[in-house]
């Protein structure tokens, strides 16, 4: 069960220009959260009604023993700007953990993690959990350019194999991260022949669309974490609708905050434009 709690800021740090890593003291969320779930964060002061709504943020990592919940976020607008101004000891109101996260299942398949930009945040927690479950994830981490690269050391610290891809080639491999999915799959097949793979992806929509195409083309199962504008974060407002299709071919709207944010890659219908 999610909780609503005021969490004290344990630490807050700008890790690269415009991207912050905040650790919040919230034992109930730290112990309940699973990878792919998120928290819904109040960004205004207690007395201000603007900005009004909470902001969804993926759980990037947890420290169950210390009760710490780590978020990594980019300042893109007013809410994230306010959040970046919090200082140690101040409190942040959180709801969480929320949503349907990644399914780790029995882990008979080798995990291929595909991250685009800030989409890397939930994959760190996933990576840690996969490793704990005995798998060594291979991570393709895509960024626009070298100065956007984040969290790589954390992944390595959790025993994942990370390959950085930058669009402008300023670090790691050059191009889009999805360009390297074939390569990664071959590599994984070469190392553990016969063992099939499963994709876990989070990133901007065009990237997820490419991941979907790749999975369908390659017949590889996958799970993608989606974003959506949200109001309630409880499933009540139906604001975060995502069009999905059932195996039977029937289409309907599901809630990113409830049935998602992680969906089976085959079920997602991306908007046409």
């Amino acid at each position, binding site marked *: 069960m999610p909780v609503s709690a005021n969490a004290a800021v344990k630490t807050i740090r700008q890790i690269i220009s415009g991207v912050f890593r905040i650790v919040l003291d919230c034992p109930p969320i730290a112990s309940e959260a699973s990878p792919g779930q998120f928290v819904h964060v109040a960004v205004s002061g207690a007395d201000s009604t603007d900005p009004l*709504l909470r902001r969804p943020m993926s759980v990037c990592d947890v420290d169950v023993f210390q009760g710490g919940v780590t978020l990594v976020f980019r300042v893109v607008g007013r809410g994230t700007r306010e959040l970046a101004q919090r200082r140690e000891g101040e409190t942040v109101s959180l709801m969480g953990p929320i949503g349907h996260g990644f399914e780790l299942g029995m882990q008979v398949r080798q995990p291929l993690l595909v991250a685009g930009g800030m989409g890397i945040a939930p994959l760190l927690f996933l990576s840690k959990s996969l490793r704990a479950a005995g798998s060594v994830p291979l991570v393709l981490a895509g960024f626009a350019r070298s100065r956007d690269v984040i969290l790589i050391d954390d992944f390595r610290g959790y025993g994942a194999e990370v390959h950085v891809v930058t669009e402008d080639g300023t670090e790691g491999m050059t191009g889009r991260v999805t360009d390297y999915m074939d390569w990664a799959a071959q590599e994984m097949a070469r190392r553990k022949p016969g063992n099939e793979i499963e994709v876990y992806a989070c990133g901007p929509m065009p990237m997820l669309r490419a991941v979907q195409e790749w999975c369908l083309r390659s017949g590889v199962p996958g799970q993608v974490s989606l974003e959506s504008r949200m109001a309630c974060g*409880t499933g*009540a407002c*139906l604001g975060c609708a995502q069009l999905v299709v059932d195996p039977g071919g029937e289409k309907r709207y599901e809630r990113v905050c409830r049935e998602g944010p992680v969906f089976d890659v085959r079920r997602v219908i991306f*908007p046409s434009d």
Partner: protein
Amino acid sequence: MVCEGGNSVTLRHVNDVIDVDLSVRLAGIVLSNPVVVASGTFGFGAEYEPYVDVSKLGAIVTKGLTLRPRDGNPPPRVWETPSGMLNCIGLQNPGLDGYLRDHLPALRSYGIPVIANIAGDTVEEYAKLASELERHGGADALEINISCPNVKRGGLAFGVDASSAAAVVAAVKDATSLPVIAKLSPNVTDVVHIAAACKEAGADALSLINTLLGMAIDVDRKRPALGNLFGGLSGPAVRPVAVRMVWQVYEAVDLPLIGMGGITKGRDAVEFILAGARAVAVGTGNFVDPACTLRVIDEIRDYMIRNGFRTVSEMVGLAHRRE
């Protein structure tokens, strides 16, 4: 909050002494306190169970129901605005059968009045839905949404025209013996005129206000921000319009009123009550603080103690008194 909570110890103490009665009667049902949830903002209650003891609410108002299930509008469906938000959910709901099967049992378990919010494309649909709900014990009262600006069909449909509004109310009254609450649209020149027509047609109470028709442009995409072009504006931003309408209708129409629009604090709720509302609904406030309703109840009680009110009725419409 400093003001409200500053000397809460004293307050709790006083609380033991003075007996504050929060209960209100409204259209034949009794609410243990005047705070209900606004339709469409609390789902069917279960969504808020992790955060709220739902049985403590005055009543629960369901998401808008239609005879048949509806898919709703394409996303984006919500957009933040200054101290408010726009929504164009488009009445996504499980339909009558889905409601009775999947939601009613849990709703009943809270032991509080259930007010079903109903919508339709035709007068007949409203009437059918009303009689079916009564037949299946699906509600203790009905709130007629004649004002939802989201459903495309001819735009603002029933709620902006007095005779159509009255026609819906009359048809629903005919179809059921349940108390009928007409929920008014604020997107009209003269809300009193519509309110009077609804009373004339037999409404037992009025809810006001539904959302203001608004829109936003996403200047990055250079497109309307919402999937459905227009959306309903709600939240603190609209409160002054809502309070004004409650005030106007209270002066002119003798029916109990449920006031709503931007309530996030006890003082906001009191503003509506002093303007003439007998009950209040919390809508968008639930999104900001999932426990908003319970906090509002506590803060109303604190206000009453501080100001020497023993019953809610003493406060209803008090700001209208002449010196």
